């Protein structure tokens, strides 16, 4: 057990506890706050993986933007988030079963069958990771990058058109 193990366990616990609040809490506002907690945990995991840029982006986009959007939506659709309203549908037990079976299969496969069979090529981190990422985005992956910006534009216009008062 090194420090890294400890940090990993703490960050994973934060992530999974947040996710648990999201799926189990009857108050949707608290569920959204649990989601924020979970996103922070994921940002920490990125930092642990030496992906500082994505950790910052995670905090900016998920914690800063998407969570705020979702909390806005919860506030705007207010009376459905009351605590008395049943939040689970009639198929929740089957859903639980499906999720547990999927996790069982995935966990068994990952932990006992294919664990660490991938060639781990640890040491070759780029010297300037953010520069390398930026360069890759405008050279090798220029087309997906441009398509993503078009997607964002379309989503921006579409969201305004759909949500506008008629």
């Amino acid at each position: 057990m090194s420090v890294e193990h400890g940090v990993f366990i703490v960050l994973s616990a934060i992530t999974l506890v947040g996710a648990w609040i999201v799926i189990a809490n009857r108050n949707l506002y608290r569920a959204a706050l649990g989601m924020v907690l979970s996103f922070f945990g994921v940002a920490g995991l990125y930092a642990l993986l030496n992906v500082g840029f994505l950790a910052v982006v995670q905090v900016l986009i998920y914690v800063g933007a998407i969570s705020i959007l979702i909390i806005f939506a919860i506030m705007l659709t207010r009376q459905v988030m009351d605590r008395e309203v049943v939040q689970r549908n009639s198929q929740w037990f089957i859903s639980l079963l499906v999720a547990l079976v999927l996790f069982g299969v995935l966990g068994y496969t990952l932990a006992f069958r294919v664990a660490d069979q991938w060639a781990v090529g640890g040491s070759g981190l780029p010297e300037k990771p953010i520069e390398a990422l930026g360069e890759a985005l405008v050279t090798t992956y220029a087309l997906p990058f441009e398509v993503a910006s078009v997607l964002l534009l379309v989503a921006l216009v579409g969201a305004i058109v759909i949500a506008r008062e008629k």
Partner: protein
Amino acid sequence: MDVPLSWYLLVAAALFCMGLYGVLSRRNAVAILMGVELMLNAVNINLVTFWRYVAPEAMAGQVFAVLVYTVAAAEAAVGLALFIAIYRSRDTVVVEDIDLMKG
């Protein structure tokens, strides 16, 4: 790099399954969207982990993760706009009550 690769994959699998349960069991559309966001986060953890452990010289893993962010942001914006529009016209965001297309 002390932490084994499979630990990250296990955490991501757990996060994905919890998101899946949220998507399948919630009645409120906004809560379903939160489940989808959890699943997207799990996918991103996998992408970044494989980038770090298997191919840190190639930037493909990080580029994929950035694209997932873009799609997630677009999806959240359009999805929430849809929910607000539905709420305005039908006064509910409970997915069972939004059944105009049901035959």
